[in-house]
């Protein structure tokens, strides 16, 4: 055995010996950690434009901030089955992805809305002229529609955590283009028409996250 091997052998024995000595004086340490029942909130907004006639295959453009402007609305007119229609719309709508982050707890989401401004002399605010379609976006497969309302009909709408199992929450927000949409029946949905007062319409949509 050469000298280098002897040194290695002695070092190995010393290591084993010290380990045995250490085991003879073992102390048990209890290790624990508590994951807090935490809750978090964030919202990412995309503008959807240049969609096909079914509102699909749109161009998605991320938006900075959470102020969703519809700009100056343009008149859209034509006929469907011989019936003339005309309304004002922006030609785009928004998708709001709500990412809820949590620790050990389950989260639920609540939506509420309030008009904040409308022109003097105008009866209906933006709440009756904007619809929200909220869906679950699953990890795979098509979106699952959870509801569709005009904003003024939201009241306090709760999205239970169980309805979002396996996915996350997304809301599509757009100016109403069909007041006779069967999903909006009985909610007083209105399009922007020539009978509305010109001016600025605005409102606030509040998305609330709490643990269950």
């Amino acid at each position, binding site marked *: 055995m050469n000298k280098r091997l002897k040194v290695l052998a002695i070092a190995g024995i010393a290591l084993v010996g010290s380990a045995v000595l250490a085991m003879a004086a073992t102390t048990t340490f209890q290790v624990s950690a508590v994951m807090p029942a935490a809750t978090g909130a964030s919202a990412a907004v995309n503008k959807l434009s240049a969609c096909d006639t079914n509102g699909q295959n749109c161009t998605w453009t991320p938006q900075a*901030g959470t102020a969703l402007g519809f700009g100056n609305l343009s008149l859209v007119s034509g006929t469907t089955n011989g019936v003339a229609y005309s309304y004002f719309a922006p030609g785009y709508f928004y998708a709001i992805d709500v990412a809820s*982050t*949590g620790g050990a707890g389950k989260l639920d989401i609540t939506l509420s809305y309030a008009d904040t401004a409308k022109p003097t002399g105008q009866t209906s605010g933006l709440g009756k002229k904007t619809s929200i379609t909220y869906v679950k976006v699953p990890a795979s497969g098509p979106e699952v529609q959870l509801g569709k309302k005009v904003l003024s009909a939201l009241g306090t709408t709760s999205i239970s955590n169980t309805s979002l199992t396996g996915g996350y929450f997304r809301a599509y927000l757009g100016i109403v283009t069909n007041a006779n949409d069967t999903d909006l029946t009985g909610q007083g949905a209105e399009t922007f028409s020539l009978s509305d007062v010109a001016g600025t319409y605005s409102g606030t949509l509040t998305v609330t996250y709490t643990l269950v």
Partner: protein
Amino acid sequence: MRNNIFVVMFLFIVFCPVMAEAQLFIEDGKVVLSASGGEHINKSVTVVNTSKEQAQVRVYWEDFQYQPPYDGTKKFYPAGVGPASASKFINYSPQEISIPPFGKEKIDYTINVPDQFDKGLYGVLFFEQTGTGVKKDVTGVNIVTRAGALFFIEPKAAARESALDKIEIKDGNVSGSFVNKSSITLIPRMVYYFMEDEGMVKDRGELKNLYVPSGETASWSFPMPTDLTGGHYTLVINADLGDENVLTKEIALTKAGSNQWSLNIGDTP
């Protein structure tokens, strides 16, 4: 080239989330405090900005109460308006904060528990991101996101009294009601099992969580097992009411023929 694509994809995945508005994370989403009358409680809630953007945050209190069907759905009220409001007993500071990217801030709160303290007090401390809002003279919707820390302030050793009532078997389901007879909100964790005469457990399961305010009644149900053979069984339902309080209900069942069940209910303390 291939490596470059992976690098670009990795960077996209890592940095894509920060395209969103500043994100808030509350470390204490549920604050449960047991207190005595006249006690003063000083604590804090920590809120974290998990984004690379500065977060302007408004802090305010609202009341809440769980709503039917008591599956966790809540209704929020302005401070002092909701039932069992804790709003007039709590002070917190600051009420406006600016959190740096990836930073955190503490909101200190003091609760002055009333001298006569015999029922639960509740509320939620909201952290609302104050954005720029829709520009003036522009038609549009401003999205406000807020995350809340729920507060449950309850008397120490408050009696947790409840009952499981109106139990019936119908359309292949066992159903009944949970009655909260306590002065505090109860969140029972309920499990059940079917036991045959020899004491062997033949089926078991867990019910959906219920969130039942004081004096309210919630409904529950679960499907009957279909693979049990005819004979006598005992259905045992345990409701863990918290603080080492358990409500147990035992129900004698007889299965005659295919899915012909009859029941005979008795209580155990």
